[in-house]
């Protein structure tokens, strides 16, 4: 069916599909991908013939590709990429094409469960909710809001996050709210705050169409956002292809495509980026006039990177000094530079400091806010952007600054509550600290929604112990009985994507409406309905005794969120469900002045750094110490961006002695997170059924390991048994994907986090590898 642009082959064998080349500044051609039926290769069964298509977008990575859900007989039977969608122009990746099959998995949760005499047993909603509400009331009275912790997701909808945020911040008044976004995009958000004053993705995916140079730092886009990679590949195959420079310790498909692959040693991104900036200054590749007009901090940065000539960085990061110079030359001679960043920076050593250096590169070149010029601090999850902007991650909603009394008063007015109710006296409690408080017993109710920390957090033995303990009381809201749900006191069955309505926003600020296509199974309920039910039963009220939550459906929640976002950088006020139904994906900010949304931010080189506007007063990148409002004001940013400087520091656990190898963890193209969904999609599960460890030929030879041998990978914290794959990975480094609960990479990782973004360090742990007899 390739002739009509559909089904051009097997997306498992070829995750990126047929090339549709295009030239600089042209529109990316349409290629519609569709998958209906069981995907086993035979004809579509009669009962799987699509009766109607329901508009939505994909929730299996941060790309957020527009798609239609095919429905037959009240079941989801397929998906089809939306040709007119700005994100994907019809394409879907392997996870998008097959992941929906998990919805009809026979092991969906259909009734609430409560723990009785140590066992989880089925019960009704009233009984389950009563149990939570009774415990909540008792705790709120005796301990206050600080006894509650909420750990949510990057996979719910904006309406759900905002409702949760209001419950937590204005109902209970707890500062302990975070999402698994802490593991995924906390550094993206933080680096944007540190450099530009506020969260908010500067660039747009359309910048791929215009760029003449792409710099991908720790961003294996070929695996993490296959459709975005297709766009880059199509540019690379068309007229005027962009240069591609990739920094990654592994020879990923992305790195193999690059004109220049910088195989940076894990944990040393900052040294590499400082040396590249050294070269930009030394060779006059800095746009001095633009920098003087639009940034603060150039002098300090120039002084610091002067200490990082390529030869010094080469010793630290294992990249040849000549390659560093060549990278700087390519970036320094670019006319339209698009830089992208993902987990190779965010989950590694000195995450925020390194991510800020990528922002610096574009600022030093004066290349931001114009077609082809910008930074994409990527997200990992499909709705992580909403977790951040709605305040379900602990930040105040609407990118408001907890340190700014005027911002807190705005929320107090909006919600009609006493400002003292809203936690704003200290930074929000980050995920790892929430778990620590739970471990120590001061958080006594931990509510986990749509995430599986018993597999995803570092140092799993510790996490399991916390969940298994008598306290905290653990509520888990999920579609499946995950490894986490099995340890809960109450399990609430949740609807999945396709079974509920709501909006979500991808990594380039594109908002999609995802409509309910089918009913959830059994008694499962939309996450929004669960939160609303809790709020009702708790009887949260505002200062005038009216219900705190004044909405009872998704559209009502969306309207409330719009009001909250109005006037802030993430302004949704010009959007509506009708508008999204009509137009498809629209990029925020979307206002009366910009009714069609906003393609790229900072087009006038004015940044939200004014002290009255900024989301954050900034931190010391080395320690995470906060700058005071006074210190911030003294810098007089006045709409200029910050060039942030930081020196390289060794990681929290350097390889050596009994643990001589550096472990980095990551992803396969076929799975998402802990495979809760992708592991239940047969084609995806078959494509990557078990974990493995990648070893260099040098290390394999030294250890007497052959390709396919079972090996034991062991750290100071735990061990796993996996087959070996011998690859071109940097000698001294090994790689394990993190998706597999039975062979969990996080048995090996350590509890440590970036001092600024508080994102855990998953990419630098010391391990040893031995062949199993």
């Amino acid at each position: 069916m390739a002739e009509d642009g559909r089904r051009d082959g097997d997306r498992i064998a070829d995750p990126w599909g047929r090339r549709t080349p295009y030239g600089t500044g042209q529109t990316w051609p349409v290629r519609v991908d569709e998958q209906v039926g069981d995907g086993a290769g035979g004809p579509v069964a009669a009962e799987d013939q699509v009766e109607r298509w329901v508009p939505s977008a994909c929730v299996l990575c941060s790309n957020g590709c527009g798609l239609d859900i095919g429905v037959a007989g009240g079941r989801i039977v397929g998906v089809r990429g939306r040709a007119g969608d700005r994100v994907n122009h019809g394409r879907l990746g392997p996870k998008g094409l097959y992941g929906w099959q998990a919805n009809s998995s026979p092991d969906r949760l259909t009734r609430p469960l409560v723990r009785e005499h140590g066992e989880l047993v089925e019960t009704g909603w009233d009984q389950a909710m009563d149990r939570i509400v009774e415990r909540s009331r008792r705790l709120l009275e005796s301990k206050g809001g600080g006894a509650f912790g909420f750990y949510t997701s990057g996979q719910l909808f904006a309406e759900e996050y905002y409702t949760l945020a209001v419950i937590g911040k204005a109902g209970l008044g707890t500062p302990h709210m975070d999402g698994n976004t802490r593991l995924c995009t906390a550094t993206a958000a933080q680096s944007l705050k540190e450099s530009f004053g506020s969260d908010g993705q500067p660039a747009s995916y359309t910048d791929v169409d215009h760029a003449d140079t792409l710099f991908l730092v720790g961003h294996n886009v070929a695996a993490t956002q296959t459709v975005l990679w297709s766009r880059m590949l199509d540019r690379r195959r068309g007229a005027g292809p962009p240069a591609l420079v990739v920094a990654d310790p592994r020879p990923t498909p992305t790195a193999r495509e690059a004109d220049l692959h910088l195989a940076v040693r894990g944990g040393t991104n900052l040294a590499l980026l400082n040396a590249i900036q050294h070269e930009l200054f030394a060779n006059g590749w800095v746009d001095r006039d633009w920098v003087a007009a639009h940034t603060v901090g150039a002098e300090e940065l120039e002084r610091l990177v002067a200490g990082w000539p390529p030869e010094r960085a080469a010793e630290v990061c294992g990249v040849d000094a000549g390659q560093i110079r060549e990278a700087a030359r390519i970036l320094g001679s670019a006319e339209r530079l698009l830089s992208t960043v993902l987990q190779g920076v965010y989950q590694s050593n000195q995450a925020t400091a390194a991510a800020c250096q990528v922002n610096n590169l574009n600022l030093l070149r004066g290349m931001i806010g114009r077609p082809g010029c910008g930074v994409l601090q990527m997200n990992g999850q499909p709705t992580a952007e909403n977790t951040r902007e709605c305040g379900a991650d602990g930040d105040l909603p609407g990118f408001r600054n907890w340190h700014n009394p005027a911002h807190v008063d705005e929320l107090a007015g909006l919600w009609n509550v006493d400002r003292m109710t809203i936690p704003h006296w200290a930074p929000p409690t980050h995920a790892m600290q929430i778990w620590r408080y739970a471990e120590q017993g001061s958080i006594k109710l931990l509510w986990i929604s749509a995430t599986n920390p018993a597999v995803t957090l570092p140092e799993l033995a510790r996490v399991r112990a916390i969940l298994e303990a008598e306290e905290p009381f653990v509520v888990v809201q999920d579609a499946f009985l995950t490894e986490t749900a099995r340890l809960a006191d109450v399990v609430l069955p949740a609807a999945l994507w396709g079974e509920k309505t709501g909006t979500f926003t991808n990594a380039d600020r594109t908002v999609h409406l995802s409509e309910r296509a089918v009913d959830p199974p059994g008694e499962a309920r939309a996450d929004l309905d669960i939160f609303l039910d809790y709020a009702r039963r708790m009887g949260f009220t505002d200062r005038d005794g009216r219900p705190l939550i004044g909405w009872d459906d998704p559209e009502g929640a969306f309207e409330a969120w719009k009001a909250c976002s109005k006037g802030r950088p993430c302004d949704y006020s010009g959007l509506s469900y009708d508008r999204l139904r009509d137009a498809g994906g629209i990029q925020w900010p979307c206002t009366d002045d910009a009714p069609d949304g906003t393609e790229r931010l900072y087009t006038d080189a004015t940044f939200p750094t004014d002290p009255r506007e900024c989301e954050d007063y900034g931190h010391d990148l080395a320690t995470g110490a906060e700058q005071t409002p006074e210190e911030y004001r003294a810098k007089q940013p006045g709409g200029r961006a910050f060039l942030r400087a930081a020196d390289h520091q060794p990681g929290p656990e350097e390889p050596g002695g009994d643990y001589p190898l550096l472990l980095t963890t990551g992803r396969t193209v076929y799975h998402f997170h802990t495979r809760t969904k992708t592991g239940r999609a047969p084609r995806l599960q078959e494509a990557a059924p078990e974990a493995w460890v990648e070893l260099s030929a040098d290390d394999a030879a030294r250890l007497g390991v052959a390709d396919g041998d079972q090996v034991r990978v062991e750290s100071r914290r735990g061990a796993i048994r996996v087959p070996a794959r011998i690859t071109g990975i940097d000698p001294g480094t090994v790689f394990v994907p993190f998706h597999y609960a039975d062979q969990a990479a996080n048995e090996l990782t350590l509890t440590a986090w970036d001092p600024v973004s508080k994102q855990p360090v998953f990419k630098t742990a010391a391990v040893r590898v031995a062949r199993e007899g």
Partner: protein
Amino acid sequence: MHLASYLGLLHLAELKLARAYLAVAEAHGDEPDVETLCRRFADQCTAHADALAPFADRYGEDQPEEPERLHSELFGGTRGGGLGLLRDLHDLYLMATECEVTGTLVAQAAQGARDADLLATVERAQKEAAGQLSWLRTRMKQAAPQALVVAD
């Protein structure tokens, strides 16, 4: 001239603080941020103390006695739990303040003595001391509400 005795005070204060940071790092290994940064700060303080050595020779440092006894004032046994962490950080903050103010006075004396080397050495240390104080303050502010209001 009494600069020597203030150099001695500063030297001792840095060493005391270094040891206290190490003790807190060891006692609070379950708080990875505290452990990592306290170890780094301990190294900074030791380096500050070492950097004073040439000036001790120049001015004849007057070394006060009994550093071990002073050290024990901070850490009379490890303090566990959220409140214990807060109390330990609070003590570190007071000791770091003592160090910082002593450094400020030595820097003033260096200016009076027109000793540019000493001034530069102390100013470098003062910058790091300010970073330590700023982090301690941030971390205590984060910990205080939970430790003082919520925890059992």
